[in-house]
């Protein structure tokens, strides 16, 4: 299993993701600096969370124009797998590898809390291979702009096309399931070919071993085993 993690100035979950992937696969991912324009062949590229370029202008906008992202677009166009988490999701949207956009949380505040996700019925994808539809996972979020927005036509087509991968569902009965106002409770989506996924929750922060939940490990294991096949 060969993986690569992109690093932009301002990325801050790169180490966390590296530790998580290495723990699962036993192999350290390649770390790719944003100025590099070439990618060695890998089974998956992971774009980690953080505040690439300070979130300035629009989240992910400046990172999406970095040389390394051209290489990622190439990799994806050859059918390569890509996972973007949090800021990584925002970058994938800015690059156009995924449709729609993420806007400010409806509460207009940064939100860091546990959420419960339900795996949706999707098109064929290696990224959710081990996870049955309906599987529920407790994984935390931490973001300012995680409110997924698309027009009704796009939302309908995502749903009909099986591109909605994860939705927020009730966790704490005393609180709303959806932490950010995201359209139709969407927490993660897939590209039309099922090989690019973006999600707001941070699986690398739910690895057991001192974390409140171990479900992120289950999730990442599914992703990594799926793309290694």
């Amino acid at each position, binding site marked *: 299993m060969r993986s690569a993690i992109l690093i932009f100035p301002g990325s801050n*979950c790169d180490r966390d993701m590296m530790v998580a992937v290495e723990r699962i696969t036993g192999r350290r991912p390649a770390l790719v600096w944003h100025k590099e324009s070439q990618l060695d062949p890998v089974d998956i590229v992971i774009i980690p969370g953080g505040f690439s370029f300070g979130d300035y202008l629009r989240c992910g906008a400046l990172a999406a124009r970095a040389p390394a992202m051209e290489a990622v677009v190439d990799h994806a166009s050859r059918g390569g797998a890509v996972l973007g988490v949090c800021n990584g999701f925002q970058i994938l949207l800015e690059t156009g590898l995924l449709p729609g956009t993420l806007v400010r949380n409806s509460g207009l505040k*940064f939100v*860091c809390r546990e959420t419960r996700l339900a795996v949706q019925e999707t098109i064929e994808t290696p990224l959710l291979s081990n996870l049955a539809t309906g599987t529920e996972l407790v994984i935390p979020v931490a973001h300012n702009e995680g409110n997924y927005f698309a027009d009704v036509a796009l939302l309908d087509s995502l749903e009909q096309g099986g591109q909605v991968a994860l939705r927020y569902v009730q966790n704490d009965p005393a609180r709303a399931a959806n932490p950010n106002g995201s359209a139709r409770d969407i927490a993660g989506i897939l590209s039309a070919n099922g090989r690019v996924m973006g999600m707001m929750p941070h699986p690398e922060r739910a690895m057991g071993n001192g974390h409140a939940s171990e479900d992120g490990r289950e999730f990442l294991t599914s992703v990594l085993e799926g793309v290694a096949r």
Partner: protein
Amino acid sequence: MSNASEMRFSDAEQMGLSFEEWQLILTRLGRTPNLCELGIFSAMWSEHCSYKSSKKWLKTLPTEGAQVIQGPGENAGVVDIGDGLAAVFKIESHNHPSFIEPYQGAATGVGGILRDVFTMGARPIALLNALRFGDIAHEKTPHLLSGVVAGIGGYGNCIGIPTVGGEVNFHSSYNGNILVNAMAVGLAHSDRIFYSAATGAGNPVIYVGAKTGRDGIHGATMASAEFSDETESKRPTVQVGDPFTGKLLMEACLELMAADAVLSIQDMGAAGLTSSSVEMASKGGLGMEIDLDLVPVREEAMSAYEIMLSESQERMLMVIKPEQAETARAIFEKWDLDFMPIGKVTDTQRLVLLKDAQIACDIPLAPLVDDAPEYDRPYRPEELQPVLSTAQLEKDIPLDEVLKKMLSSADLSSRRWVYEQYDSDVMADTISGPGGNAAMVRIHNTDKGLAVCTDCTPRYVEADPFEGGKQAVCEAYRNISATGAKPLAVTNNLNFGNPEKQDIMAQIVGAVTGMGKACKALDTPVVSGNVSLYNETDGMAIQPCPVIGMIGIIDDWRTTIGAGLQQAGQALYVVGQSDKTNDGWLGCSVYAREIARREGGAPPSVDLEAEAKNGQLVREAIAKGIASSVQDISDGGLLIAMAEMVMAGQCGAKITPPDSGSLHGWAFGEDQARYILAVRDAGEFAALCAGHQIEAVRIGETISKTELTVGDLPPISKEVMVAWHTSPIPALMG
């Protein structure tokens, strides 16, 4: 004032210097200073940089111990945590800037304290804060609270250091003077700590980081002046934080330090280039020469005075090994940061500044540092407050109604609205974040955990500065102990009013003395700190707030436990309470303020020996796996602590009040040195207590229903308590 014209006393006075200080400058220089020189003196001699009112008393604090690698006097304190690692930490205030511009003031406070920590070669691993706002109903409070919290999150979340703990309280004395104290904790190799003393005459002095602008000029003197409505309207140029550049600067500095290129390094905090250059040169017993035309600036026509006193953020000054200059430059270029040799170390013991090919400043360093005025300010303690009896305070109100009022009071209600705006999980080593006792972060890749917290109870300090100073240390000690970690050392932030007033000075003296005594008794030396005085508006002083930031260490983070009750059928004990204290100490308590509507009265006294003994017992009960949850008893007393254990837990509790005495005193009294424990095995626990010669009182047991039952009173469900507890702040903030 123009740079060329000769300065007069009136100019010095405008900068906050006294006539004696002005005279001293004339004598030391043997001539009249120019504007730039006078600005440098006034900044270095300001309260903020020189600690002139507090130094005498700070010297009385215990600063030594086997665990201490570096005590006060550097950018941050350094404590040995074993395995070749050290914890580097400090707390710092940003009170005045945060009142003027809450978001940026708080954000730059976080940025500044982070620089203090990574300047020493440590990678920051945790952030905390201690906040005080005015009355929750005051018109400015929501605006200030939301701005400060967003600013703290804005910086910490972006730079990627988890904010894991802190405290927020409200009191009308902070209506015009909020407190924003930020603490950072970092991790370094104990043999690779970096210091600020310049070395080697001839070595290059390098400026790195962001460019210099006209931000916050004379912030250090502003922080040392009393507030009036006039200063608010003057609105000095506010510093703007740039956490993105801060992150790049942090990564670049840590990379450069790993490359073995740095000889000495100092961040540019208060008084910017002035204090950094003066401190580096004077600590090294050397001099420095800087060409101000080489300083990267982002505004045109900046004068020597402005460049020296700018408080632009995200900047550092370093002395590097000359042969490593190119390596260093390459690292900073990689991170897109300015890297500029601006001068050199000299052996003249003078600070010489060039501007436009002329000498803009040439002053001996000794007077700037050694002659910085040190005052022995007179003080007159206020008379001690009377002890209020339970009978004087107890109100005839049903217990559940009191519990409701207390849980939903400004000071005891849940802070979830606040801490959910902080990324408390980034770095993926947070074992327990905000919302419990002390927070715990794992030492990356090891079994060890670092417990951290901030604490102070201003109403106690106001009523009795000495006991209140002791209590702040003890409360932190209890919070650390309740996680199972061993308390190691403290940093402190002394927030007080105007020290020129004798009653305020007496508060400082009392609190520092009490704090010192407690730190000594508990073997938690003071390794760093900060002082913020003149927290007054139009003559109204704040409630004194000497905040303690404490760290502790646990050998195996897996053994730590939380406050939440885990399993039904376990015995609940109170440690530190004999049957005799069942009457409870209500004076100066939250109960007294919220229910009896009476502030003041003597606070509970603090028994340092009991604190040490009880803390030791609790840590052992955790280490041996006897206790399954622990909560220390602080604000609001036993019943509040018990309610918190139910709200955070998986099961409920049924407890029984004593047969006699005051029910409210028992439930809400704030006697010190106490903890509630849920234990797996009552027999083992009894044996442990007997071994320590400590009496623990069994008050009840855990039950499977998630509710709290007190004696024969109707049970109160967890859901109801959580609703009381979590709604007040969101309701206020809309």
